[in-house]
């Protein structure tokens, strides 16, 4: 399966101090599909997602064991350049975090860092990805305004555009709709469904209905363990593990 799996996680364990947050997780993420990581609060969903672009590195006292292979390359190998890894993934966080600059500069931030200087190309890129994120029509005339003036839903789409603008292969979302109203949530969900044509998408969610709506593949985490994973239709229709069944029926949450 490794052939069409841009990310494979091999025996990954994560320790915060001496709290084992992820226990020996192995998972292959299918390409150009939406993989949903589901599970109750505190089960390690965010930890798993952050381990994929090495955002865990920014924590003190975190230890990571095992491997995460990104296009066959171990991202935790000592030689691996972390900025290059992160560039391959766009991240949507739980609450949108816009950068303290204009709408335009938010989207141009990544490309500029990676060396794009030409005004014309920057303009093109900003427009292309704002369109892709479904925000262009709303902000076209106010690109120079501070991004913090946008509504929360717009900010989340701006974050999406900003992540896309570094032209990643993978989109990571950590409950990207949890701070949004139903309308904006739907908007973001629709974007993700469109984006899976060209990107591999991994979304953490604890809204089961959302997972049913958008996921092609499911990974169920429980107390740091990967209990079950498989095509969404199968997992939802016939969960193999009793814990998955209990979670899906709402007995554990």
């Amino acid at each position, binding site marked *: 399966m490794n052939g069409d799996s841009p990310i494979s996680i091999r025996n990954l364990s994560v320790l915060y101090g001496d709290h084992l947050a992820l226990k020996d997780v192995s998972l292959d993420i299918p390409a150009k599909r939406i993989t949903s990581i589901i599970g109750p609060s505190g089960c390690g969903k965010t930890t798993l997602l952050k381990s994929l672009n090495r*955002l865990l590195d920014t924590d003190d006292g975190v230890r990571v064991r095992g491997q995460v292979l990104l296009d066959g390359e171990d991202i935790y190998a000592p030689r691996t350049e972390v*900025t290059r890894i992160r560039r391959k993934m*766009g991240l949507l966080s739980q609450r949108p*975090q*816009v950068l*303290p*600059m204009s709408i335009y500069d938010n989207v141009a931030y990544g490309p500029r*860092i990676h060396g794009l200087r030409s005004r014309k190309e920057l303009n093109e890129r900003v427009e292309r990805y704002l369109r892709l994120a479904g925000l262009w029509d709303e902000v076209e005339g106010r690109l120079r305004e501070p991004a913090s003036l946008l509504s929360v839903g717009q900010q989340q789409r701006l974050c999406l555009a900003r*992540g896309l603008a570094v032209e990643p292969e993978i989109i990571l979302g950590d409950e990207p709709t949890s701070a949004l109203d139903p309308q904006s949530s739907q908007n973001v969900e629709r974007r993700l469904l469109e984006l899976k044509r060209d990107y591999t998408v991994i979304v953490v969610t604890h809204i089961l209905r959302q997972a049913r709506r958008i996921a092609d593949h499911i990974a169920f985490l429980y107390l740091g363990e990967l209990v079950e994973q498989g095509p969404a239709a199968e997992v939802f229709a016939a969960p193999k593990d009793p814990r998955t069944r209990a979670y899906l029926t709402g007995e554990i949450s």
Partner: protein
Amino acid sequence: MNALAANHLGRRKRTDLVFRVLAAASAVMVLLALLLILGTILWKSVPALSLSMLTRTPKGGFYLGREGGILNAIVGSVYLALGATALALLLSLPVVLYLNVYKGRTSKTAVWTRFFLDVLWGVPSIVIGAFGFVIMLALGLRASLLAGILTVALLEFPIMSRAIDEVMRLVPRELKDASASLGATRFETAVKVLVRQTAPGILTGVLLAMGRGIGDAASVLFTAGFTDRVPGSLADPAATLPLAIFFQLGTPFPEVQERAYASAAILTLIILVISLAARAMNRKVNRHVVK
């Protein structure tokens, strides 16, 4: 509503009232103290205050001069404060960014660095002045604008660093992560995101330190010297307003003492202008800050 509940509500309202009155009273007291200081200084300085105070250097020596102005001290103070503040900022920013971007919240280095900065903040300025004097001699410098700038920068550095540090620590980790996840290095995150996000706090820290620097007499006493000429280079000694006040008030002549109050009024005015400029600038630097 039963009697007990009504009684309880009554008591809560009374407590609230007491605190409102206390709060208002303390606000009035602060305002009164400020007005009293400003009023006294202005009133005492009226006889000596004139345009030539601002535009001319002293005639007849800075101790005994009853003619001319204190342009030497005004220019000296401004040069000194600008130089020292710029230097302190040059030292503070890297330290603070290092603490907040490269070091985690629980890092020992960070904890100790903050502790040392706090200690340095508490060192009396006369001690900083004495230290500056020793360094000055060791470097073979004379009392000069340069030696003064170096010493005052040392005085301002801990104030500025800690003030900026306090706002940088409030930057949510998610914001730094957002920048990192786009492939930014820590340095890029520091310079492009943290500095912008905390721009208002940086401005406040800079002004706080500058206010302290321009008003301090003890640190420049041995290091900047005093002269009745406007300094022409970094190697020249430089007069400063706090020392002008000190010397003028120390003379036995009432006319010269009046000039001390005029100097004080001018110093206060300069600080007021700095604060107002900061207010005006704050709007601009606040624009992009993410709340």
